[in-house]
């Protein structure tokens, strides 16, 4: 990452590194402006806790997906299958939980189902991701095509095992835990997102894995020459993406209290939008978590702001999202950072 802002020596070191990225700074400014607008124009909503709580429950759905996609994009690839994985794992988990603790079961069985369900979901997600990683790393199919195929495949599997119908009636213990609020304010699903974001932060900034990932994404040939175990890195990255997708499925399960094969149909492109908005270069090798998190929050705030105007239809949401993306792209072009020439060469065929 090139240094684009002169840091003030007074800022703590962590914040300083975060704001070295122009995208992050820009997004932070946008967020602050947005919040100010929100506060001024719709104070009653802004000051109501319910608004924030509902926001905090919604964005983890696509936020977790975006985290997974972010990792694959830093690698120079992409993961279009996340929604398919999320639905497939959610349906499978719901069915499993129903099997373990059918209607009217004891509470302890319910909690057993919850535990087994969560574990099962993450495992299946990992397997789904690993399959992606294998096809990309070993068979060397362009990531965009692999994940397109697995998106269809996993959604198809979700359809078949659910018979196309929503699965509901899960043990109430699931909702008790996953749908709960810590200290009666903070939704559990938000905690899950925060944990997820922390894991990504830790991986990218504090482990050798993260450094190697950035290297591989930046120059695959050089990474090969350096002796990096590229296959293992790629498989691990897509596996993690699969795990995050599965956790997003768990969140949706909690939010809707049901699982269906076509939930979150707009989330695929939304996740990519978030990641790009957050400053991740699709060519790989650059980008910060802070940018992605800010992008998630910006889009959620925009969405909720829209909800407060009852006369304005909800359907405007994609219009605004798309508009924001295009706007940011135009601004970036004006700004002319070095990243752009790399973006131009991206054709979705890198790992």
């Amino acid at each position: 990452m090139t240094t684009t802002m002169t840091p003030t020596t007074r800022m703590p070191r962590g914040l300083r590194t975060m704001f070295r990225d122009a995208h992050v700074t820009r997004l932070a400014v946008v967020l602050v402006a947005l919040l100010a607008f929100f506060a001024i124009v719709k104070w009653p909503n802004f000051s109501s806790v319910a608004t924030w709580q509902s926001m905090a429950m919604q964005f983890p759905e696509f936020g977790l997906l975006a985290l997974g996609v972010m990792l694959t994009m830093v690698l120079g690839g992409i993961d279009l299958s996340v929604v398919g994985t999320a639905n497939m794992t959610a349906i499978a988990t719901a069915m499993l939980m129903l099997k373990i603790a059918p209607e009217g079961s004891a509470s302890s069985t319910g909690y057993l189902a919850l535990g087994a369900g969560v574990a099962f979901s993450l495992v299946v997600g990992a397997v789904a991701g690993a399959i992606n990683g294998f096809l990309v790393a070993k068979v060397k199919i362009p990531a965009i095509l692999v994940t397109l195929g697995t998106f269809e495949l996993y959604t198809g599997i979700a359809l078949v095992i659910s018979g196309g119908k929503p699965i509901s009636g899960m043990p109430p213990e699931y909702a008790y835990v996953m749908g709960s609020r810590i200290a009666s304010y903070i939704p559990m699903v938000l905690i899950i997102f925060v944990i997820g974001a922390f894991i990504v932060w830790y991986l990218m900034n504090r482990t050798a894995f993260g450094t190697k990932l950035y290297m591989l994404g930046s120059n695959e040939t050089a990474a090969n020459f350096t002796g990096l175990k590229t296959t293992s890195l790629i498989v691990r990255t897509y596996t993690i993406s699969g795990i995050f997708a599965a956790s997003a499925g768990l969140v949706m399960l909690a939010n809707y209290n049901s699982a269906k094969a076509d939930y979150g149909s707009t989330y695929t492109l939304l996740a990519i939008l978030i990641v790009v908005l957050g400053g991740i270069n699709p060519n790989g090798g650059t980008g910060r978590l802070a940018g992605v998190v800010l992008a998630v929050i910006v889009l959620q705030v925009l969405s909720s702001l829209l909800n407060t105007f009852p006369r304005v239809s909800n359907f405007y949401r994609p219009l605004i999202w798309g508009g924001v993306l295009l706007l940011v792209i135009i601004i970036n072009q004006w700004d002319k950072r070095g990243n752009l020439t790399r973006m131009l060469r991206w054709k979705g065929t890198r790992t």
Partner: protein
Amino acid sequence: MKARAALQKVLRQNEFYILLVIILLAIVIQARSGLFFSLDNIVALAGAMVVPGIFAVGTYMVLVSGGIDVSFPALASLAVYATTRMLVDWGWEGGLWLPLVLVIGISAVLGAFNGAFTATIAVPVLIITLGTSNVFSGFMQGALSSVQIPSIPPAMAEFGRASLLVTENPRTGHLSSLPLSFLVLVVIVAAAFVVMKYTTFGRSIYAIGGDESSAARAGVNVKRTKFALYIIAGVLAGIAGLVRTSMMGQMHPTNLLGMELMVIAAVVLGGTAITGGRGTLTGAMLGTLLIVIVQNSMILVGVPTIWQRVALGVLIIAGTAVSAVQMTRARKRQGAIV
């Protein structure tokens, strides 16, 4: 000697293998159900090919230029929805020409929107059209407060009902009709073939997809070519949407959304490289045919439609895997370090 070289060349083409797979699939389905090669099935397949086929033509052209456009279903939906809405509100009872003109006009404008961005901003087309796709569908669903329009202008409905020929299945008594719009597909494919092979515009698209800066140095006006390309792609998408709505007899705004990945997969299966510069129209059509067969004829083998997406997914993975393995082997032969 020349014949042998020509044969070798054919064998190396991707299109040959797709054709092989299609024939194989056809034989298998015929064997299991005895119904594949019946006239009414062929007719049904041809009818099912029309809308994805027209989409595929536009997608093929864009892919060859090195871009990936995911906005075409949203573009088509918006253009047709707006047109239908307007005409129904005005109570249009006249000929098909007005809906056609309106759809083409609107989709040209929307395509120009795509083209302007792509030509001037150095961001991958995938990302740009992601944005425009959301803008189009958001506009349609939001500003136009899209609801299903149950009755469409009579001219369109008539067009949708018009058929070239009707066949009856001797065993089941099932009637299949080859829609008039099939002719539209034929005309479009023929025109695209001529453009891509025999015009400077078409060859420029291949050049841009091969090496954009070399194309610029060779004298191609890259910006103008791309701009025109996206207008054409938009118009094609609009026509496809018009055909679909006419055939369905009603305008369902979100019906087409989500088709983009399927069409892209079809074109890529047919040999068009996702990186650009390579691909044939024949391959794109064959790829579309393959997917249409999988989607429509599975039922003939007794596979319930609910398995369609699984089949599609497996097909995409298998198809791209084969192509990737081929490329890896070719690169190894050239001595590169894999």
